[in-house]
C-alpha cells in the first residue's frame, strides 16, 4: 500500500469526510509531507472505491457546491489495520536494531 493511500484511509478511519477534508487531514497527519492535489486525490479515491475499500456515505450541497462524503468500508478498515500493523512491526525492527548497534558501539 502506497503512502498516500495509507494516509487517505487513515484520514477516514475516524469517520466520514469529504474531499477537501481528506486533503487537509492527510497534510496534517503527515505533518505537511504529503500534499494531495485534487487530480491525485480523486484518482486515489476512485481506485479505493473500485477496490471497495471506501464507500460514498452521502452527498450534500454547501454554498451551492456539491460535497460527497466518503467513509471507510469494512474491508478498508481491515486492510488499514493490517497495513498499520505491518508498518509498526517494520519500524519496531528498525528501531531495535539501531539501538542494538548503538549499544555495541
Amino acid at each position: 500500500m502506497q503512502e498516500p493511500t495509507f494516509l487517505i484511509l487513515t484520514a477516514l478511519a475516524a469517520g466520514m469526510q469529504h474531499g477537501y477534508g481528506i486533503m487537509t487531514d492527510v497534510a496534517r497527519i503527515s505533518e505537511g509531507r504529503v500534499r494531495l492535489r485534487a487530480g491525485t486525490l480523486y484518482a486515489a479515491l476512485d481506485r479505493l472505491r473500485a477496490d471497495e475499500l471506501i464507500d460514498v456515505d452521502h452527498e450534500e450541497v454547501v454554498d451551492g457546491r456539491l460535497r460527497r462524503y466518503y467513509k471507510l468500508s469494512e474491508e478498508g478498515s481491515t486492510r488499514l489495520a493490517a497495513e498499520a500493523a505491518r508498518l509498526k512491526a517494520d519500524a519496531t525492527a528498525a528501531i531495535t536494531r539501531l539501538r542494538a548497534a548503538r549499544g555495541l558501539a
Partner: protein
Amino acid sequence: MNGQAELARRYRQRLALYPRAYRRDHEEEMLAVLLEGARPGQEFPRIAESADLIWGALRMRLRLGYPFRGNVGSDALAVFSLVAPLLRGRPCLVDLRCRLWRPARRLVQGLFLTCYLLEAAALIVSPGPRRGLELLTWKSAAALAPAAAALTITWTLTMRLMFGSAFTSSGDAQGNAVAVVAIITFAAGTVLFSSSGGMSWCSSRPCSTRTGSSSAGSPAADAFRTAQTAHAHAHSTSVPGQPCNDVAL
C-alpha cells in the same frame, strides 16, 4: 466574488480535459474541492494544480483509472496494439514487400498510418464506453480483411485492425474472441516470417534473401508468396542485393 467566479471558470477549463463520463460523476465535486482549497482573492489555478489536473485527465484517458477499470484485459491489448508495431525490431510500422507497385505501397502506407493515428487519437479522446469506435476497428477489419488478403501486402495492416478490434471490444465475447485470434496469428506470423528472414525485419536486407518462406500453413504467407511470384513475373527486373523498399514510418 467575481474573482472566484473567474477562478471557477478557469478550473472548469482544466477539468474539461477529463473524459465526459468522468466529469459527469466528478466535475462539481472536484470543483468544490479546488475552490475550497483556493486562497482568498486567488484568480488563477496554481501551476502545480493545473499540472495535477492535466496529469489526472491524461491518466483517465489512458484508462489508468476508474471508470475504465474492470476491462484490464482489453485495455492492456489496446496499449499493446499501439506499441506492438514499434516492438518489431525496427521503427517499421508498415512492412511492405519490396518490388511492390509504388502507388499501392503508398496507398497502404497512408491507410495504415491513418488507422494508427486514428486509433491512437481514439485511445486518448474516447469519452468512456468504446462502442463508438467499433465502426473504426472491428467492423472495418471485417470489411477490409478480405481486400487486404487479396492485396497480400497488408499482413501488418490486418493485424493492426484486429488489434483495433480488441481495443474496442469492451470485454464482450465477440471482441475477445477476435482479440485472441489476433494475438495467436500475430505471434505465429511474427515467428514464421522472422525465421524466414521476412516480414519483421526491413530495410537493410537485400530483397533476394527475403523471398519465399519455408513454412506453410499461414494463409497470409501463402497469399504473399503468390503475389510475389506474380509480381516477379510482371516485373522481371528484380535485382538481387537491391535493398528493399520497406516503408518505415
